[in-house]
């Protein structure tokens, strides 16, 4: 790999002078192209995801995730069972790039020609996402995927590569600029606080006196670059307890097997890839090729590549090698009573760090589930049950955009706002002695930075519904304890009450003015003054807040929100059946449905929520190759009962249709049902392993007995035929 001390060039092909006042971002197309043919690279695997049928066996789709609407919808431009074409959802190249550009390597749909730019897109402002060569080949530890994601979300497309590589610091947000802004317009002189144009401040330490940048490049890419987009980890395992793939642990880089030439048409390494992509010597890079040397059996392969050990597979019946992919026994988590929930970089936004938590629980991906691949071999897959709202008609099911669902369903999907708005309003109370929290039905909720609720403790009353103060881990009433009837001691607390009621009156979407009932008195704000009315029929011993609407008292949190908050807080699910029912009512009960948990939910003629099975609710699955475990952790290393048994987790683990909805109607399937096997047979077959050790022992004894008799007969016959017996006589 030669030293890359080269001039950086901008989109126009002009050399970048980092010391000038407003230098443009560097362009990979112009900087790398003089030596590396950009057009040839652009046809590579990572940049051609929109080319139908180009990639062979299904890979991980993209997931449109919206926790609020409970959407986890698999998307792909490639046709595969269970995935939806983004175009069917009305997603343009622009939309797709905004949604998934955080993990796109650039090129393809993120770098559309003028003819493919749709109305409403802002490519002129943001620039295109050119293939980010440094995203893979930068060996510097300054390469930062989080920075890349941040710049993409700010629509700073053409600046993202410069910022992510650490070549310079990028400020401003293209997303806030007017649609007619152009990079040649430069900074926005009218606004230095909000609509700030993106700009680069290059790190001059990278440049020499001729303004050439010293780039630390790697060919092939470091694993860390691959894992930015291709990492997978168990959702409930601490990182320190998670072992990397055995190949990585042995020092074998991802690109040692997943090789490519200038075309960037990469070897994926699955059996049968040669048929999908004849131009690559992929048959040399399967598990079997390296470890057994029998990939194509009639093709020349190079066994033992990179020191691959030859597996002895002692005692494993040959049928296993004919019917199973190597990864069944060697890859992914060991089978447990339920598949392991995992999170992946692209689906769950792993590895992107910032003030807020970028990673998401949804989509709920599980592994391993064993399905047949295109060769008919049983292969471990990752699996996800789709969840989305849809319009239904005679032509089938048409997924809805989460934004459209939110707009139609409104407050139904935001039950926690009844609390978060109150807590937000209380932050305006001067000199609060703690953090405002909310006690509801015996639980105390704090508001998270993401605007959600977090259960932080147990309250005193099972039917509570009022704010408290949290101080040093303890909870105390918002209003100090005092006697309202005592005119000498009450003025100070009542002044506090006035501040609180004034703050609460500013609560967003409040149904009316706030009122406080306390020890037989009622307080409210009238003409900016605190009005105190004696109400002997309301002897509330602790402060009780309500909204007053047309002289009727409304609780701070209505019953629907109480139920929903209690059901959802602390759970990964984001919807209840009651919410689904109300949202379907809002969307139009006749022709709308919600798909989740392996079922299609809709309202019947009586307005009740019912569910049925539907193809659209079937899980989407894609084969998995890693993490490969050490040989001593392979299935079968402890004998047949690793997999075969009446209660085997391998065959009979329960695969629950995990998703965003709390429901009892969700599908639960046995792992064996995905394999296409007959469950009772495998129960019976598994049972037979209880007696097999004795059977084998018995057979061994019989072999010894029969062998002994035959040996005696053979020796006797040999003696007779040789005449030795006669001679002895």
């Amino acid at each position, binding site marked *: 790999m030669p030293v890359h001390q080269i001039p950086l060039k901008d989109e126009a092909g002009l050399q970048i002078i980092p010391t000038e006042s407003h230098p443009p971002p560097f362009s990979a197309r112009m900087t790398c192209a003089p030596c590396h043919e950009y057009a040839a690279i652009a046809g590579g695997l990572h940049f051609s995801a929109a080319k139908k049928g180009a990639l062979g066996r299904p890979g991980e789709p993209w997931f449109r995730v919206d926790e609020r609407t409970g959407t986890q919808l698999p998307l792909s431009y490639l046709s595969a069972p269970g995935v939806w074409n983004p175009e069917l959802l009305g997603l343009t190249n622009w939309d797709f790039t905004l949604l998934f550009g955080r993990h796109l390597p650039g090129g393809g749909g993120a770098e559309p020609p003028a003819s493919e730019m749709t109305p409403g897109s802002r490519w002129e402002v943001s620039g295109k996402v050119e293939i980010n060569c440094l995203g893979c080949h930068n060996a510097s530890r300054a390469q930062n995927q989080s920075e890349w994601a941040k710049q993409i979300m700010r629509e700073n497309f053409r600046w993202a590569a410069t910022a992510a590589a650490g070549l310079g610091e990028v400020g401003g947000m293209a997303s806030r600029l007017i649609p007619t802004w152009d990079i040649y317009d430069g900074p926005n002189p009218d606004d230095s606080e909000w609509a700030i144009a993106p700009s680069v401040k290059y790190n001059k330490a990278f440049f020499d006196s001729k303004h050439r940048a010293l780039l630390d490049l790697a060919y092939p890419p470091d694993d860390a670059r691959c894992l930015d987009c291709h990492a997978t980890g168990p959702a409930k395992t601490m990182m320190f307890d998670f072992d990397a793939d055995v190949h990585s642990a042995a020092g074998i880089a991802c690109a040692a097997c997943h090789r490519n030439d200038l075309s960037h048409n990469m070897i994926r390494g699955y059996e049968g890839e040669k048929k999908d992509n004849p131009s690559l010597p992929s048959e040399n890079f399967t598990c079997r090729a390296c470890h057994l040397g029998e990939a194509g059996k009639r093709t020349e392969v190079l066994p033992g590549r990179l020191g691959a050990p030859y597996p002895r597979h002692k005692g494993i019946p040959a049928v296993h090698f004919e019917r199973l992919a190597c990864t069944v026994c060697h890859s992914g988590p060991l089978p447990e009573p339920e598949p392991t929930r995992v999170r992946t970089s692209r689906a769950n936004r792993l590895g992107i760090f910032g003030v807020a938590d970028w990673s998401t629980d949804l989509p709920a991906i599980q592994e391993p589930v064993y399905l047949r691949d295109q060769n008919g071999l049983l292969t471990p897959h990752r699996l996800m049950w789709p969840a989305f709202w849809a319009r239904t008609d005679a032509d089938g099911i048409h997924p809805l955009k989460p934004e459209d669902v939110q707009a139609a369903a409104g407050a139904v999907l935001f039950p926690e706002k009844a609390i978060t708005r109150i807590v937000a309003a209380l932050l305006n109370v001067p000199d609060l002695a703690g953090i405002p929290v909310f006690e509801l039905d015996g639980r105390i909720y704090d508001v998270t930075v993401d605007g959600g609720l977090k259960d932080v403790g147990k309250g005193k009353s099972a039917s509570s519904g009022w704010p408290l103060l949290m101080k040093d881990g303890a909870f105390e009433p918002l209003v100090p304890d005092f006697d309202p009837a005592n005119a000498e001691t009450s003025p100070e607390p009542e002044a506090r009450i006035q501040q609180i009621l004034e703050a609460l009156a500013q609560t967003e979407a409040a149904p009316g003015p706030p009122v406080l009932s306390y020890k037989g008195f009622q307080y409210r704000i009238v003409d900016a003054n605190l009005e105190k009315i004696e109400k002997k029929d309301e002897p509330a011993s602790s402060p009780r807040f309500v909204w007053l609407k047309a002289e009727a008292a409304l609780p701070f949190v209505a019953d629907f929100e109480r139920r929903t908050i209690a059901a959802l807080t602390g759970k990964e699910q984001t919807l209840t059946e009651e919410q689904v029912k109300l949202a379907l009512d809002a969307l139009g009960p006749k022709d709308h449905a919600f798909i989740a948990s392996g079922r299609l939910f809709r309202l019947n003629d009586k307005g009740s929520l019912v569910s049925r099975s539907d193809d659209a609710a079937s899980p989407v699955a894609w084969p998995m190759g890693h993490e490969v475990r050490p040989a001593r952790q392979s299935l079968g290393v402890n004998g047949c009962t690793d997999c075969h048994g009446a209660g085997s987790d391998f065959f009979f683990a329960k695969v629950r249709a995990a998703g965003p909805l709390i429901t009892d109607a969700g599908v639960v399937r046995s792992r064996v049902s995905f394999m296409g096997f007959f469950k009772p047979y495998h129960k019976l077959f598994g049972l037979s392993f209880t007696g097999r050790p004795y059977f084998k022992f018995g057979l061994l004894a019989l*072999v010894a007995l029969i062998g002994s008799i*035959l040996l005696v007969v053979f020796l006797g016959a040999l003696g007779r035929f040789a*005449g030795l017996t006669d001679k002895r006589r």
Partner: protein
Amino acid sequence: MIMSLISVVVLLGTVFGLTYARYRERPEDDKRTYGRWLGVKTRALFAAGTRKTSRKVLAEWLEAHYPAWTKWIFFALLAGLLTQALTGIFFEIFIARGMFGLPLIGHMIGGGLFAASLAALLLWRGRAYRLDEDEPGLFDARLRPLPRAAAGAFLIKIVFWSFAGFGFVQVATAVGSMLPVFTFPTQETLLTIHRLSALGLIVTAALFADRVFVPRRRP
């Protein structure tokens, strides 16, 4: 594929060899062709009296060779052998995937029965097939053609012990492939040996039945 072809050739060859040997022993005035002769004999298999005659021959043979309860050893061996042969041949010739599922379990259980009954057979009946002193040694002057009757008995003994030998290989290769001892290529070799010895077992069993149960014409 090759094993399937070998199986078909060996099985058809055995049927042809045994029937053609019989055909050659027909009376001199019988001028029928082999095909016509075989057709007649095949039809005779389904004639009314054949089943009764066969049962009688078998009962007499069992009475003479397997008295009292020991006849169950013979029946167990027969059941085990038939299970093995039928499942083995069917899947070898007609199912490209090979044997799997319940038939495989049946094949394994039948194999256990076969192994146990073969061991019992050798213990109880092995002596009956002892090679006599009259039979020739390799290096003495008695190496000469045996009288026809003695040659027949000698052949039956050889067939019997060949059958036992093939049976031993069958059981040993099956057990071997079940134990966590041999590598995958070795197992494949064991499986090939298992298939080949199964053919040997069937051929020797057919030869034995031909020699023992089907009456021969006196010269």
